[in-house]
């Protein structure tokens, strides 16, 4: 076919997606910037309290000094412009409390969170594919039980599940460490706690489509060619059934980032969750804003990956 033209069209599509991603990022930055004015208290007072370690009325000279240092005495529109400019250059400001750049703070903690989210997503997909291909759409009790089991998992609160897993597998059976840090063994239980709930949603979406596709004439057609049942499920049905699951994965990614906060707390893991909780309780605005902007960026990247994956799995989408 006309490959040159196709590549040109692909590039245009990617450019358009990146541009819309940037707009979302800008909206997230703008939102977090203006939200800080809605919070009670002077920003200078918060910084003074954090610095002095006690709560008291801020002296006039100190107030002016802090305002000058952080640029709070400038008009809001100038502050906003500077903030957006900084964000565009990967600069998220200084933490009020920890006296270090927000980017450094996030960079140090983002690794474990991404590892956890990625592991949970991968695990959920592996369980989904295995159970669907083996059990879905069959005329037996396991097939019927599968859907119910998935709904049960989807309704479980992950932090509760995390506690149960911790008690059973770490404390009673001593199979996994209670506080695992960043070791592979330490990743297993938190991953399971997150993955099982996701599997509930993901499995349902894939199961429904899989059962529907199994009744399609092209499946019968393939069987009439002599293709075996397992092969029909794996090569034909699964590909169709995966599509709604892939689309859902973008949304799941967002859920994972927020869900990780609680799980990290339960297992005492490092991660963005801990950073966000600490920053919120100390009203460390630059850190909170920074985490939100970085999460938005991750989310945008996730949906771009989702869209590319959908097009790889469903070549019909490329024309749209």
């Amino acid at each position: 076919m006309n490959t040159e033209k196709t590549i040109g069209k692909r590039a245009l599509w990617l450019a358009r997606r990146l541009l819309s991603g940037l707009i979302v990022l800008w909206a997230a930055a703008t939102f977090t910037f203006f939200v800080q004015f809605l919070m009670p208290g002077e920003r200078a007072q918060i910084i003074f309290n954090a610095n002095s370690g006690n709560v008291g009325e801020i002296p006039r000279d100190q107030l002016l000094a802090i305002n000058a240092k952080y640029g709070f005495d400038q008009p809001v529109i100038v502050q906003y412009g500077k903030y957006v400019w900084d964000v565009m250059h990967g600069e998220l400001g200084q933490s009020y409390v920890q006296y270090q750049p927000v980017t450094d703070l996030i960079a140090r903690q983002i690794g474990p969170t991404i590892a956890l989210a990625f592991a949970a997503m991968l695990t959920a997909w592996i369980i989904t594919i295995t159970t669907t291909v083996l059990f879905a759409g069959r005329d037996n009790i396991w097939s019927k039980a599968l859907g119910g089991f998935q709904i049960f998992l989807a309704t479980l609160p992950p932090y509760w599940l995390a506690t149960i897993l911790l008690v059973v597998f770490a404390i009673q059976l001593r199979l996994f460490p209670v506080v695992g840090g960043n070791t592979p063994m330490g990743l297993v239980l938190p991953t399971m706690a997150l993955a099982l709930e996701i599997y509930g949603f993901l499995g349902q979406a894939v199961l429904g489509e899989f059962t529907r596709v199994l009744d399609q004439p092209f499946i019968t057609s393939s069987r009439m060619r002599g293709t075996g049942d397992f092969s029909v499920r794996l090569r034909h049905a699964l590909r169709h059934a995966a599509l709604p699951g892939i689309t859902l994965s973008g949304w799941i990614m967002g859920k994972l980032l927020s869900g990780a906060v609680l799980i990290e707390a339960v297992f005492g893991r490092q991660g963005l969750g801990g950073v966000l909780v600490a920053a919120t309780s100390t009203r460390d605005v630059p850190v909170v804003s920074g985490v939100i902007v970085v999460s938005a960026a991750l989310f945008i990247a996730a949906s771009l990956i989702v869209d590319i994956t959908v097009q790889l799995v469903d070549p019909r989408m490329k024309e749209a």
Partner: protein
Amino acid sequence: MNVTFPAASFQEDATPPPTSNPLLTVQNLNVAFGPAHSRRAVVKNVSFTVEKGRCVAIVGESGSGKSVTARTLVGLTGACSHVQADRLTFQGKNIDRLSDKEWRALRGKHIGFVLQDALVSLDPLRPIGKEIGEALLVHRAIRRGADLAERVVELLKLVGVPEPEVKARQLPHELSGGQRQRALIATAIALDPALLIADEPTTALDVTIQAQILDLLSETRERKKAMILISHNLAVVSQMADEIIVMRDGEIVEHGSSEQIFGDPRHDYTRGLLKAIPSVRSRGSRLSSSRAARFVSAEGDEGTALIQSDIAHCGRPLLEAERLVKRFRGPDGKLRTVVNDVSFSLGYGETLGIVGESGSGKTTLARMALALEVPDGGEVTLEGRQWSSATEKERRHRRSDISVIYQDPLSSFDPRWTIERVIDDALTRRREDPRDRASRQSEVSELLDLVGLSPSLKTRRTLELSGGQRQRVAIARAIAPHPKIIVCDEPVAALDVSIQAQIVDLLGDLKSQLRVSYLFISHDLGVVHHLSDRVLVMNHGEAVEAGRADDVFLRPRQPYTRKLVAAVPQLRFQAA
């Protein structure tokens, strides 16, 4: 389940004498669905044989058990099915109780199967070359690699797909309907099976493509292979089959050679099927037998009450379309002209047939006549007043002058509404309707009676009705507001022949009773010829030929019309 049925007696003398070694033998096949306590028999005591190099056709209407019979031969009757047969042998081997693995070895390699509508019968996410390759790989006939790609291209060439190297890498939806069906046939004949089963292989196709596919299938027989052809279309079957099996309600009602079935049908049902095919010969006569006669007698009383609307016959046409143009933007952003400079007029009480293959623009033309689509050029006038260029507000009170009947009425009904509500809703749309609910209720009953439905169906919902009944409800709804024109867009395309015959007869009766005009759109030249006074032939958005129905169909002037008329499968044997 082993009930003896009266048809058994004639079956013995009508069946050609079996040779010593048939390719396939089916004896007393019974198939039932459902669990033991509520088992429903769908195939009852079916027996037949297929010889090498012969083509056996199974004809019947939906629900006759013809597809289930065919699927039994490859062991794919589906879940909850119960198959039982005295004898079921293929190539001398018993295939009655095969394991899953044994069935798989048979499918594709020894028995090829072609389903209807390749768009849904080929995996929409896989290139067609892969689907054909699958047939070869499954039976380890060839290894992956250059040899496989070469063989796939050869097969595509064999079934007449142009540019096979390119098409092999394309997805089903990127191919035309005919090319798709050819590719699907290629998957079935990849390993040159001894028996090819084709289940309605041309039903979803246009006439000219249908003719090409039938030619392709005929080649199978030249290679001395056997074929079972399943179809509801007797004309298609008459061109190919050596033997014909007529099925109804899971039973064989008649079985004989093509010559005998078409020349001297013995069973009433077969005769009814043959008579139900609309064609040149059937013009002016009824297609269906006794069942609709009840309706004709009603003409005198209830019928007249509805004709009071004065259809004054004046010189100017009722509906006139002047040089209509419609363009749509395609997925690639390019403008496509769907209707190009088409003019037509429709007189009072006249039927104008619009024929053309899919994509010829006939439905778009109808939507412009209904003012559901605004033309990009030209104008539609209704009774001499502007119609397409009028504002929606001006049109609204005149909307009741023009009704529509679609191919699939089910999707045009609210599934939660009762039949009564569906028709009552159409009644209240009539302008200035001051009448009370009680009189409307009686009018609903009158309308149901007029379309040949029992008024006791009023409380049912459309999902509970059969296809033919639904189309009758759609017709009742269309005539309820006393329209002057009814646009019929493929109104019988989804129906079995005998039901189609009843609906065509009903439309004919209503025309004379209500003096309504029809804009009748169909791809079926036989139906159009049967009903229309004048005909407009469309191709690629342009009006190719127009004129009186007999002139256009019997003495076509344009090459395209000639091609179209020639492609229509004709009954090979004149019905007695």
